[in-house]
């Protein structure tokens, strides 16, 4: 049974966030030694997860749930099976060492507290991703890893390159995350639950769903971007801008594997289809090769490691994509091995950089004597990476060859794997052997062994690789088989041996790999030149492409925005009224609801006169040569409208209209008294024609809509009510006034609010003196 019970896992999940909050405070008081204290938190979490291992080995899984957003079925639920626990162990375990390492690496840095804070946030998010059962919760954590890695990568924010890489990571992984969100929601709807554990039990529902392809594409997009699969691989090496602890953490254990985790997690419900078994291996394989080839070109040790990470991720995706039991077991093994050796190697490189002042391949050499422990860690890890016995990396490689060899298209996948691994072998040798052996080169700083904080992690992880290799059977049974089972969605426990028990194809392939690797290593320098030349000839890559795309988007956005938002009021008005005209006519055209022209016969002569005057009045305003004249002419239509009110039984209206019309003219005259207008209204005749047609269309549209409404019977209930109770209850004979002050008094109170505010606004318009008449952009004190 788990150490403190399943529910205690929630505390383990909360821990890093608490640590994040504590970090700045502790770092202020304890400086770098805060690491020791803070490392306890991930260590405790590690122990908590470790305590699940025995149960898992017996085939158990664990679930716990807290209510979070019940309205939308979002729960704070966790699901612990082989897959999630192994990941959680890696995250918390390596996290512990990284915490220590960060203390050493950033010793004396003023922002150590912030850094640790970000790191713990990241750790908490990452743990959340792997243990979350609810897909929405998973996604929340997923995006949180993107955000925190943005902060971590950009930690050295005064450097442009850091900022660029941070943005790249945010955009690529955050963008992929958005696709993932849609994919997860779709999967949830199709599978009938947002709980991953329930989805996993839904069998073939998703595979048979009409949305399978959509779900697949969306989920894979999320996974590929996060796990830096070609063509999204570029952000990962760039993320090396981050301080080394970050690189080590991000790229060994955790974040980049989130994508792999997701694919493995969803394998039982999405895997095994043709689509899956085609897309994943192809992209994985390409990524593997691209990663290694680009790795060869690098001279920066850290970058070499970064590209090999890309390659390893490609390998993992490829293996997961085969949906083959053994291949997946190989993937599990490789993932485990990779976490150990890559974590260790990053710390090694960081330590070298920290102690020697450089991490350029050509400027370091013969450091072993000065840094024996680091050197040992390097050698051990490199052996694991190269796939040499007796390290866990070797076992992983054996099993994965064993897997790929027998699958459909196995030849192709195996070829990918062999080629990739061979280059990986050569790169391992480059990274681990070159700096520590051979002639001693003069480095910017005189190298010494790093402090305990710096070396503890690398050597521990490296030794763990050795230990795991030695006890691979037990590690396999206890830890990795439950994980494999979880990925496969069915129990699986194949015994593992450090050394092959028979002459399998895998063994031959291993030998071939090593041989090829040695050759590549020997020609490494020449290859580097060739690759560099080729890349220079191509002259373009997704990394450059990212900038170009971003730039293109911004330029496109600028052009588009300038086209839409022209800054010309005339255009705005034309567009607006065009839309209005469309909205008036399109429904009428589509519904065929045209009004009839009727009822004109019952009008009195003087009513025609008044209507004619209104029309003439409008026409006169339109055609007035001078604006001043137009103002005088404006009164005519207003008067006509007032007379219409009068003739149709609305004395109050008429009264008000007369008053208002007059006062408008008075205010207009008061205002116009101070304008000295130039006389012309220059509209081109084409513009005029356009304006006229829009105006006529709008007018006709409203007219017809009104006609079609007034030709329907009218429901006078409201007015009858008002008429009936105006005097009897409300004590007023003027029904209109009673409506205004009683029946619908709340309209009036709003109306007088408008009047009052108008008064104040006009006062403000006239009285407030502008502080500056220049551009307010430069004005302070806003």
């Amino acid at each position, binding site marked *: 049974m788990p150490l403190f019970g399943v529910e205690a896992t929630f505390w383990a999940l909360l821990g890093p966030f608490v640590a994040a909050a504590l970090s700045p405070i502790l770092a202020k008081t304890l400086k770098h030694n805060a690491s020791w204290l803070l490392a306890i938190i991930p260590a405790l979490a590690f122990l908590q997860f470790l305590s699940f291992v025995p149960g898992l080995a017996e085939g158990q899984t664990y679930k716990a749930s807290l209510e979070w957003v019940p309205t939308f079925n979002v729960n704070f639920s966790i699901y612990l099976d082989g897959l999630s626990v192994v990941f959680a162990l890696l995250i918390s375990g390596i996290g512990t060492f990284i915490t220590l390492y960060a203390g050493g690496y950033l010793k004396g840095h003023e922002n150590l507290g912030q850094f640790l804070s970000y790191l713990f946030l990241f750790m908490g998010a990452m743990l959340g991703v792997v243990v979350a059962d609810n897909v929405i919760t998973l996604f929340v954590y997923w995006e949180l890893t993107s955000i925190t890695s943005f902060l971590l990568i950009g930690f050295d924010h005064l450097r442009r390159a850091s900022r660029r890489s941070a943005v790249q990571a945010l955009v690529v992984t955050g963008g992929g995350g958005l696709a993932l969100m849609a994919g997860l929601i779709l999967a949830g709807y199709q599978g009938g639950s947002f709980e991953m554990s329930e989805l996993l039990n839904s069998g073939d529902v998703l595979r048979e769903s009409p949305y399978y392809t959509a779900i697949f594409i969306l989920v894979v997009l999320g996974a590929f971007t996060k796990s830096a699969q070609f063509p999204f691989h570029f952000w990962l090496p760039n993320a090396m801008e981050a301080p080394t602890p970050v690189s080590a953490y991000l790229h060994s254990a955790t974040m980049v594997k989130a994508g792999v985790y997701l694919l493995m997690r969803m394998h039982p419900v999405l895997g095994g289809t043709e689509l899956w078994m085609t897309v994943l291996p192809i992209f994985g394989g390409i990524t593997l090769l691209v990663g290694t080839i680009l790795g060869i070109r690098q001279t920066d040790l850290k970058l070499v490691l970064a590209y090999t990470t890309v390659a390893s991720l490609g390998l993992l995706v490829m293996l997961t994509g085969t949906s083959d039991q053994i291949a997946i077991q190989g993937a599990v093994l490789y993932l485990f091995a990779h976490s150990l050796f890559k974590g260790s190697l990053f710390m090694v490189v960081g330590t070298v950089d920290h102690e020697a002042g450089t991490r350029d391949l050509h400027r370091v050499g013969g450091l072993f004597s000065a840094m024996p422990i680091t050197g040992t860690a390097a050698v051990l890890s490199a052996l694991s990476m190269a796939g040499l016995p007796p390290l866990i990396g070797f076992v992983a490689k054996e099993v994965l060859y064993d897997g790929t060899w027998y699958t459909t298209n196995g030849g192709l996948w195996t070829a990918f794997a062999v080629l990739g691994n061979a280059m990986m072998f050569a790169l391992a040798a480059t990274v681990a052997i070159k700096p520590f052996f051979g002639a001693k080169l003069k480095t910017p700083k005189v190298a010494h062994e790093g402090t305990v904080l710096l070396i503890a992690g690398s050597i521990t992880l490296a030794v763990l690789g050795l230990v795991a290799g030695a006890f691979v059977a037990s590690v396999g049974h206890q830890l990795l088989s439950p994980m494999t089972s979880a990925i496969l969605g069915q129990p699986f426990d194949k015994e593992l041996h450090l050394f092959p028990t028979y002459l399998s194809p895998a063994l031959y392939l291993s030998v071939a790999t090593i041989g090829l690797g040695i050759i590549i290593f020997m020609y490494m320098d020449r290859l580097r030149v060739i690759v560099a030349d080729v890349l220079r000839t191509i002259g373009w890559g997704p990394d450059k492409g990212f900038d170009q795309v971003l730039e293109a988007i911004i330029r496109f956005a600028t052009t588009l925005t300038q086209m839409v938002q022209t800054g010309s009021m005339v255009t705005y008005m034309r567009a607006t009224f065009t839309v209005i005209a469309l909205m008036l006519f399109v429904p009428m055209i589509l519904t065929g609801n045209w009004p009839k022209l009727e009822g004109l016969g019952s009008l009195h002569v*003087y009513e025609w006169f008044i209507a004619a005057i209104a029309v003439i009045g409008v026409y006169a305003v339109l055609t007035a040569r001078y604006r*001043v004249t137009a103002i*005088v002419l404006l009164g005519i239509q207003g008067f006509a409208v007032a007379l219409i009110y009068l003739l149709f039984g609305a004395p109050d209206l008429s009264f008000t209209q007369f008053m208002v019309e007059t006062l408008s003219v*008075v205010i207009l005259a008061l205002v116009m008294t101070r304008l000295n207008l130039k006389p012309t209204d220059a509209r081109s005749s084409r513009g005029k024609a356009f304006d006229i047609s829009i105006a006529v269309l709008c007018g006709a549209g409203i007219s017809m809509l009104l006609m079609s409404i007034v030709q329907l019977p009218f429901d006078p209930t409201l007015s009858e009510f008002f008429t009936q109770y105006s005097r009897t209850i409300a004590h007023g004979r003027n029904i209109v006034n009673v409506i205004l002050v009683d029946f619908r008094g709340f309209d009036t109170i709003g109306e007088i609010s408008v009047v009052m505010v108008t008064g104040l606004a006009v006062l403000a318009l006239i009285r407030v003196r502008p502080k500056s008449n220049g551009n307010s952009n430069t004005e302070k004190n806003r």
Partner: protein
Amino acid sequence: MSGFEAFAADFLYACVSIALFILGLTFLLIVYRIIKGPTLPDRIVGLDLLVVVAIGLIATVGVGSTYTLYIDISLALGLVGFLATVAFARFILNRGQAKDFIIMQEIKDSERLEEQE
């Protein structure tokens, strides 16, 4: 109702109708002047008269509909009509003194017209 009373009612109805008709025509005439101008003062005289005639129309409608409450509207309209005229007069005065382009143009036009005649 006696015959005389019936006649009186009919007569009144006819008078109201005729008056409304005449007033309608009157409006058209006034509107013609307002639009034609040619000068701002001309238009303002026209507007002033429009208000005055509208008052008459209101009274006539009041008689026609037997609603005497229209008197108040007439009174109010008289008040604000006066205000409008005052405002316009002031407007002409101020703009003219500011040598408003359009007013100067109108004065020039009217002088030219005079010479042509």
